[in-house]
């Protein structure tokens, strides 16, 4: 993790600099607003990754009953929520520039807000159960159940009604609609945010283990 931390600082700085300086702004967007894609989409990707990691470790907890798996799952949800809120904030900045309003109740905005509520509820559930073993078991079951139904919230619900949101990376054409430099910085940012997630997750999970085992 120390190597990851040392590599992340210059790499993240390079990605941020490239995001502002290298690719030209995309056509059809006001001013430089299209550059938000280098921060908004990686935040959304990282939040989704975090929730999948939480589901994986929750399933591992249910199978093996190792409290460390629960520490990692809970940490993943906390970090996922952080990136989820950043996704909403960056999306809101973009919405204000493009559509003149911070919040438009667009189906994609709303479904993402509900995704944040879904995992905030996981933390409420943990707080509500006093017995540690029962808390871990109930929270793990909820995380797995939520992960199975999450695709309906993220992928299906926004498509039921018309949306203002620009075409997503996962689109009906199955193509990434970006030029070379944009694509390079975009995937570089995805890697940088994934590394950042792993580092924060490791810190949070180890802190949770210390809190659990401290006499």
């Amino acid at each position, binding site marked *: 993790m120390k190597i990851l931390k040392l590599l992340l600082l210059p790499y993240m700085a390079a990605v941020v600099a490239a995001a502002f300086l290298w690719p030209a702004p995309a056509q059809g967007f006001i001013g430089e607003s299209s550059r938000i894609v280098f921060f908004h989409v990686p935040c959304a990707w990282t939040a989704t990754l975090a929730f999948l990691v939480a589901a994986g470790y929750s399933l591992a907890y*249910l199978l093996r009953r190792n409290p460390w798996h629960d520490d990692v799952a809970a940490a993943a949800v906390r970090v996922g929520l952080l990136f989820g809120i950043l996704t909403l904030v960056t999306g809101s900045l973009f919405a204000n520039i493009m559509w003149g309003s911070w919040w438009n109740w667009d189906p994609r905005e709303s479904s993402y807000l509900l995704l944040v509520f879904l995992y905030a509820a996981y933390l409420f*559930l943990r707080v509500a159960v006093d017995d540690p073993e029962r808390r871990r078991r109930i929270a793990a079951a909820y995380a797995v159940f939520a992960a199975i139904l999450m695709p309906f919230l993220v992928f299906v619900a926004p498509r*039921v009604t018309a949306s203002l949101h620009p075409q997503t990376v996962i689109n009906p054409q199955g193509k990434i609609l970006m030029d070379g430099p944009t694509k390079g910085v975009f995937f570089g940012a995805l890697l940088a945010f994934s590394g950042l997630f792993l580092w924060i997750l490791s810190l949070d999970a180890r802190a949770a283990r210390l809190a659990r085992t401290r006499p």
Partner: protein
Amino acid sequence: MSPAPRMSAAARAGVICGKDVAQELRSRVAIVAILFFAATALALVSYAIGPFGLREEDRPALQAALIWIVLFFAAATGLPRAFVHEEETGTALALRKVAPATLVMAGKTLFNFLLFASIAAVAIPGFVLLLDWRIGSASALAATMLLGGCGLAIVSTFLSALVSAAGQRNVLFVLIAFPLLIPLLLTAISATVEATRGGMPWTALRVLFAYDGAAAGAAYMLIGVVWED
């Protein structure tokens, strides 16, 4: 009332559902409260809008959204009771002894579906009479109510088992149920709009079927660990 071990799984689930129905009919407080809630919500909506308060082109979407809001909130007052009631009355341990968790889940899901169906049986004719709801395709609406009601019952029953282990049960149920049920409700509303216009909403029905299948599979896998003593 305890189901004999040689009975089939479906029959044992039916016995558990029957026990809940008998319990509800004995007190009648819960079912009357739920139906009263549905009737009050319906009266409020019809008083606020009335049969001529909606423009013709807005009718299908608004009436579909309103009927599902009434159904969901009326059902939400009763659905969490499935497992929570057993914990509160101290009968959970006895139920654990007589049937495996999956059968208890099946029985209680069936009971919750019947509860939803009884609310729908009051709310839908009420909407037709009070809001002049003209249903274009009754079979499409029936299929939507069947699949929507199944999904609502499965997810609510599972979450009821989950929150029965925790404190502040009713508040917690609303917190965790709402985000999970939104995709189901949005799809059900979309299908109801289509049914009102007289079409068969195949895509929405497929989505509802997939949601119900995913929720049932997940609940079947997880109910054992949730309802452990």
